[in-house]
Every structure is written in C-alpha cells, then in structure tokens.
C-alpha cells in the first residue's frame, strides 16, 4: 500500500483536490493500492502497512507544514521509500537538518540531472512544472540529483531511498511518480526515452 500524505493547511481543503488527487490518480492508474491521510490525522497504524510514502505539495502561500516539522520525526527511521514533492522535499530537508530559504519558481523550467539515479532514470534534462516560494539547502551528506537554473530540484538520502523533488511530477512528468512506485517494489519502472535513444531505435 502506498501512503499519500496531504501537507496542506487543513484536511480535505481545496488544496487537497489540487495537490493530492492528481498524485493519487497516478498511483491508482499504476494499479497500486493506496491510502491517503492528512498529516494532522496520521497515526502509527497508517505507517504500518505502507510500502512507500508520498508527501504531497501545497499551495504557494501555504507554509503551515513548515511549523510542524517535529510532527514528522518518524521520517528519520521510516524503513520504506519516501518521495517528498515540493513542500514534501522541504519537509524532508528540515527533518534531516537541512534548511530552506526564499526562492520562487512558477511555471515550466528545465531540470538537469547531475547524478544518475533510478528515480530520474538517465534523462539528462526534462521540462518540469514548478510552484514554490522556498528552496532547499540539503542536509549534510544528501546527494543532489538534479538542478534548475534557480535551485536544487532533486535530492536523495545517502543510504536510504528517501527522495525530494522540488518540481511537481504530477504535472507532465507522471513517469517520475511511476518510477518511485517501482522503487517501492524493486521492479524497474518505465523511463521515457531521450530524443537520442528514440532516434537510434527508429
């Protein structure tokens, strides 16, 4: 079961429709069992059966989650893969000792992969949708996987499958969520082919 966590200002808010439902739709379409919960309603039972956890984004004006970092200390010992999207990446960053600072991107940008990783396959660069008012300085030892001109776009824990992405993969980059789901089961996901790869095979 994939646990999808709503980080927005209130349970079942309008932001839930915007930031949780599209992610849940991708997980559902991938044929994975899933459950969602708001962070304020989480219990240890919610974590028990989770094979993977997705921390969803929030509205650009919604930074309530950043005042609740202590409620997410369980992330330090969680044994399953985690994908933090935007607000979720900021939360992972803070829980593990990194910092956040003002830095805004709204709209499409180019994400460049610096360090090959199963999450972002071998795509050297791809367009991605951004909606954030803060950026991350990652925790010590974490690996920077991808960057944009503005900021760090994807990070990974040095040993565990804990990932943060600043862009919103639910917009035009479903494959990143699908790839994360494959990491939750150890099955290889399908990566989009690069233009060069497509040309070769055609």
């Amino acid at each position, binding site marked *: 079961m994939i646990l999808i966590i709503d980080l927005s200002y209130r349970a*079942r808010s*309008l932001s839930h*429709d915007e930031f949780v*439902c599209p992610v849940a739709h991708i997980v559902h379409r991938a044929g994975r069992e899933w459950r969602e919960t708001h962070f304020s309603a989480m219990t240890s039972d919610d974590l028990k059966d989770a094979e993977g956890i997705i921390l969803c984004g929030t*509205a*650009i*004006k919604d930074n309530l989650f950043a005042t609740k970092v202590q409620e997410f200390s369980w992330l330090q010992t969680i044994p399953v893969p985690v994908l933090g999207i935007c607000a979720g990446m900021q939360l992972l960053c803070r829980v593990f000792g990194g910092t956040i600072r003002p830095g805004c991107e*709204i709209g*499409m940008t180019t994400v460049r992969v610096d360090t090959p990783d199963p999450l972002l396959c071998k795509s050297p660069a791809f367009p991605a949708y951004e909606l954030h008012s803060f950026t991350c300085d990652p925790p010590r030892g974490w690996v920077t996987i991808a960057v944009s001109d503005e900021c760090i776009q994807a990070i990974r824990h040095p040993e565990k499958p804990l990932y943060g992405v600043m862009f919103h993969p639910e917009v035009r980059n479903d494959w990143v969520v699908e790839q994360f789901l494959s990491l939750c089961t150890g099955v290889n996901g399908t990566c989009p082919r690069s233009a060069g790869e497509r040309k070769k095979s055609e």
Partner: protein
Amino acid sequence: MRLGVLCSGGKDSWFAGYLAMQKEEVACLISVRSINEESYMFHTPNVHLVPLQAEAAGLPLVSVETEGIKEDELADLSRAIRLAVERHGIEGVVTGALLSVYQGTRIQRICRDLELWCFNPLWYTDPDAYMDLLLKTGFRVMVTGVFSAPFTADWLGRQIDANALRDLKQYVAKHRITLTGEGGEYETLVLDAPCFTKRIVIEESTEEYCNYRGILRVRHASLEAK
C-alpha cells in the same frame, strides 16, 4: 477564507466555484470580458451572460473588459482581482484550470504578486470522474462553441447529458480530443447548477458553423424559477 471565483460562464469555472462553496466562503465572481476572440486567456463566446449567472447564484460580480492582447490582458486580470479584494475582501482566487500550464502559471503569478491564495480544484483531475460528477450533481451545461473535428453543427446548443457524454467519450477514443474540452475542442455555458436559485432560459440565439468550427451566440436570455 473569503474567495473570488474567476468565471468565464463555462462548466469548469462554475464547477470549481461549486467545489469552493463546499469548503470555503465564495464572496464574489470575477469576470474578464475579452473583445479579442483570439485571446489566450479569456475568450468565451458568451461571457456576457456571467452577470445573469451571478444573479442566479446570488453572488456579486466584479467584471472588467480587456482588449485581449497576449500578456497585456494579464494586467487587466490583476486589476479585476484587486477590485475584488477592495470590494469584497477576498483572500484568494479559485480557477477552473484543468491542464493549461499557460493559464495556471499566469494566474499563480498574479496571486503571488498580490499575496493571495490561489486554488485550482480541478487541476489535473480525472476527466471521466469529473464529467460524471458534473452530471450527477445536477449541472445543466450547454455546448456553445465547437472548434475541432468531429463536432457537427448539431452540437451547438446541445446539452451535455448522459447521451452527449457517451458521444464525447467515443470522440476521445476515436479522435483524440480531450473529454473536458480543455484542448479548446468545445466551449460551454452553464444554464443551471446546484448553487443557482434560478435557472437560465435562452430566448434567442444565433449560430455560425463551418468546417467543424461553430459558435452559438446567445442574444437574449432570462432567469426562471426552479
């Protein structure tokens, strides 16, 4: 939270507004009337009926006109939103954006600049579930514009009911249109909604249609009791 709903008169803005009413306080509608039919942001064939819809829903309306010049029209949208803040004390904006990164990005930037919340409750929604819910909740939606194959002239004025939805789903499979019309394949006008206390009756309209492109222009409409 007091919110203003950006309203074009079509199904997406009204359904987004309806969702907003379930969770927050909708204080007003905000409408931008474009005189440019090629406007990237605001063109809809019957945006002049939004005042009648606002009356049907018992909501105040903030309305401004734009020449519809690309990017300049954003200043007019910002002006409309600022007026809504002044007149109705809104703290955020609701849009019916579904997939358009172009529109979504620009409205997000305006809201950021004005320090307002921005909500897009239909963003990347499941199109089948959305359209089913639209009918199930009692929306009466009429097609007022078609802009791609295979839409024939008889779609103009057609209500989106179960039969029309079945046809649209077949078009999705055969012609690769978007079910919701988000690709600009068709435009709609909401005649009735759960949040309306009266319904809209079209009294006079004209139609233009040629080569899979057509518009139904409502000349006269009124409200009747439900």
